[in-house]
C-alpha cells in the first residue's frame, strides 16, 4: 500500500489535469481521479509491463472519464460560470501560481485569463475523442505511440485526429493564433 501511495503521489497531478480538462467540474474530476487510482490498484496484477505504467494509468483514467461523460448523457460538462470557475478559486489560483513557479514559461506567463478561458472553452467544445488526443499530446506531451497506447487507437488514427483537432482549434481561436 505504501508503494501504491508513492505511485499516486507521482502521477496524481498529471492524471488530475487530464481528467480536469476532459471534465471541467472539479469535484467530478477529483472523484474520477480517485476512482482511476483505485481501479488501477484493483487491476494492478493485470499490468503486464508491455506499456509504460503511466500510459496504463492514463488509459484507465481516460476510459473512466469518457464512460462518465457518456453516462451523464449528451450533456457536456460545461460550467455555468465558465472554465475559470475552478481556476478562479483561491486554492486554484494558489495551485496555478505554484505550477507557474514550477514551470515558468514566457507564453504561459503572458497569457491572460481571458485567453485561457477562451482556449479552455474551445477545447471543451471539441468532441471528447479529439479532445483527449490534443490533451495527451500538447499538455501531457506524450508521443503518438503513447497516445495510441492510452487511447487504444492506431497511430495513424491518432495522427489524423490530432491534426483535425488542431485545425478545429485554430479555426476557433483564429484571432489568437494570428
Amino acid at each position, binding site marked *: 500500500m505504501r508503494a501504491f501511495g508513492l505511485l*499516486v503521489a507521482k502521477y496524481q497531478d498529471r492524471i488530475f489535469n487530464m481528467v480536469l480538462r476532459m471534465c471541467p467540474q472539479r469535484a467530478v474530476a477529483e472523484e474520477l481521479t480517485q476512482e482511476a487510482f483505485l481501479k488501477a490498484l484493483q487491476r494492478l496484477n493485470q499490468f503486464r509491463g508491455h506499456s509504460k505504467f503511466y500510459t496504463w494509468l492514463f488509459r484507465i483514467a481516460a476510459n473512466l472519464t469518457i464512460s462518465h461523460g457518456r453516462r451523464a448523457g449528451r450533456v457536456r460538462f460545461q460550467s455555468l460560470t465558465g472554465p475559470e470557475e475552478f481556476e478562479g478559486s483561491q486554492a486554484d489560483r494558489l495551485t496555478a501560481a505554484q505550477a507557474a513557479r514550477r514551470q515558468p514559461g514566457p507564453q504561459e506567463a503572458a497569457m491572460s485569463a481571458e485567453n485561457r478561458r477562451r482556449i479552455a472553452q474551445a477545447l471543451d467544445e471539441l468532441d471528447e475523442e479529439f479532445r483527449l488526443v490534443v490533451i495527451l499530446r500538447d499538455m501531457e506531451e506524450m508521443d503518438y505511440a503513447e497516445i495510441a497506447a492510452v487511447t487504444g487507437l492506431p497511430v495513424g488514427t491518432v495522427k489524423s485526429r490530432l491534426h483535425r483537432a488542431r485545425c478545429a482549434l485554430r479555426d476557433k481561436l483564429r484571432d489568437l493564433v494570428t
Partner: protein
Amino acid sequence: MSNREKIQYDLSAYLDGELTAERTQQVRQALDQDPALSAEMDGIRAVRDLLAALPRTRAPHELADSVLRRAERASLVEVSSAAAGRRPFQWMRYLAAAAMLAVATTLGVMMYAELWPEDVPTGPAVSSARDETPAPLSGAAKTGGDTDKTGHAAGKNGRNTGAGVMIASKDRGEEDLSGRAARYGKGMAPKGARGGGIVRLGNLPEGEINEVIYTPAVAHTQRQIEKLLTRNAIQPVVMASTSPAPAKPAPRLRGRGNHYHAFRVTADQVRIRIDAATPEQIERIRAEIERIRTQQRVCQVAIPGEAIALHRPPDRPDGREPARSEIADEEKKLAEGHGQGTGQKAPTDETFEHAKVKSDGDAAVGKAAGSGGAKRTGPQDPAADGTGAGRMKPKTRQEDSERRRAKGQAAPAGPDSANAPGGRAVAQDKPGPARKEPDRIAERTAQQQIDDSADSVEQVDVGTNVAAVRPGRDAAGFKDLWAGFFGGEGGAAKRGVAVAAKPVTRPAKAPAQSGPGDGPVDMQEGQAIAARQVGGPTSQVAQGRQRRAPLAGANVRAMVITLNFRPVTDDTMRGQVDAAQKDAAVQNKALK
C-alpha cells in the same frame, strides 16, 4: 488526395517530429515553396503553443490520502467478502430480482386476462382434478375448447327459481359477455367447492332456461346429459375450426334447432347450451335433468349468491320508467307482503344458513309442502292451510300434461292478457291453521296445483322476492304485473306476495284459485322458501317439485345446463342427502 493535401495532413506530425526523415524533408521543401502551407503551419504551431501554455492544475493535496483510505477500505471489504465466500448481500439482490420478475409476470398475466379475457385459454387445457377422465366436449370444446363465459348461475339479469332453474330476463347477446362476469363469479363458488368456482349467470338471452346441476363428477354427469340429448335427437354442434383455442364465444344456437354445444368454462364448470326444436323437447329434457339431479349425492340447492336475481318492476302503463325509489318501495312491499303472507319474513342468507344447520328431512318436507317455510307446529291440513291446496280439484298428471300441451300450442303470449287481469298473481294474507294431514299429502296436492298453474305462472322466486316474467311478455303483461304489485286495474290490490303472471289464452282461473291464501303459486313459494331455509339436501325434494312446473307450455326452446362441481366432503350433508332422497323415494311411491 493530392500531394498538397497529404502535406497538409502531415503538418501536425511534422510539427511534433513524428514523421520519418524522408517525409520530413518532403514537408520542409513544400513549406519552403508554398507560403500558404507555411502560414497554415504557423497556425497549427500557435495552437500547440497555446495549449501547452495553459496552466497546470495540481491535484488536491488530500487526493492521495483519500485514494489510500478508499483503497484500504476496499481491501478490507474484499477480505471480509472473500471470507464470507460471496459478495455482501448478493443473495438479496438475486432475491429482489426474482421477486420483481415474479411480480411483473403476475401483473402482466392479470392485465392480459383483464384486457383480453377471451384469449385466456380455459378450455380443455384446464384440467380438473375431479374429472379424472373428462368426457369429450362436443362442438368447439372437442376441437380445442371454447372460452365462453356467458353462463352462470344467476346474476343480475338471470332469475333463479330457487332450485337452479333460471330464465334469462334480458337478452344482451353473447358478445356482451366478458370474462369479467366469470371472474366475479368465482367468488360466488358454493361452500366446499374447490378450484374454479362458479361462473354466474349474469347475462342470459331472453327466454333461455338455465338448469344448474351440482355434481361431484362433472364429466360423468356431462356424459349423462349428452346421452340424454342424443336420445332426444339433439345433436352436438361440430365446429369447423380446428384451432386449439378459438377465442370466440360459443355459437348462438337459437334458431338452429336440435343442436347442443358443450364447453368447459372452468375446471369445475361445464356448460351445455341447447337449442331444441320444440318446447316439448325442453320439457322432456328438463324432466330427465331433474332425475339426473336427484341422483347426485351433493346438495342441489342454489347457494344464496346464485339466488340474486333481477328485481325490477316493469315499465308503467304510461311508459314511464319507474324511479329507483319506486323500485325500492316495491321490493320492500314484496318483502313485507311475503312475511305477511307466509307468517314469516322472507328468508335471508342468514336464516338460510341457520336453517341449513338445523334442518332435517321431515322439517324440510313439511316446509316445502306447508305455508311457505313456516315452522311446523303440528299436523297440518292441506285443505285448510294457507296454501289453499285443499280447494284445488285434484287432477291427474296426464290431464295436466295434455292440457298444457294444448295450451302451449294455442296460446300466443300477450294478446289475451286482458282476460287474465292480475294473472295468477296471488297472495297469502294469513298463515293457515295447523295442518291435520301429513305433509306429503299437502305436498302432493300442491304439486298438482303447480302443474295446473304452470302455464300461467312462469317463474316465481319467492326466496328472493322476485317475480320473473315469461319471455315474450308484452306491455299488457307488464301492466298486469304492475297492477299486481301496486294494486289497480286488473291486479289484486295489496297482495301480500306479488307474483308475476303471464297473460294466457285460457280464461282466468276461478276466484277460489286466485284469491288470497290459496293457489298453486303459494305452494310453489312455500317450496322455494323451504328450499332456501333448509338449504340442505332435503331441499331437493321441494325444489324438484317446484322445478317441474314453471315453464310448462312456455315457448322456450333454448336452454343452458350448467354442471358445477360440488364435492361430497361433508358426511353430515351426505347423510342428509341420503335421507332426503329416501324421503323423496317414499313420497314418489305414495304419489304413484
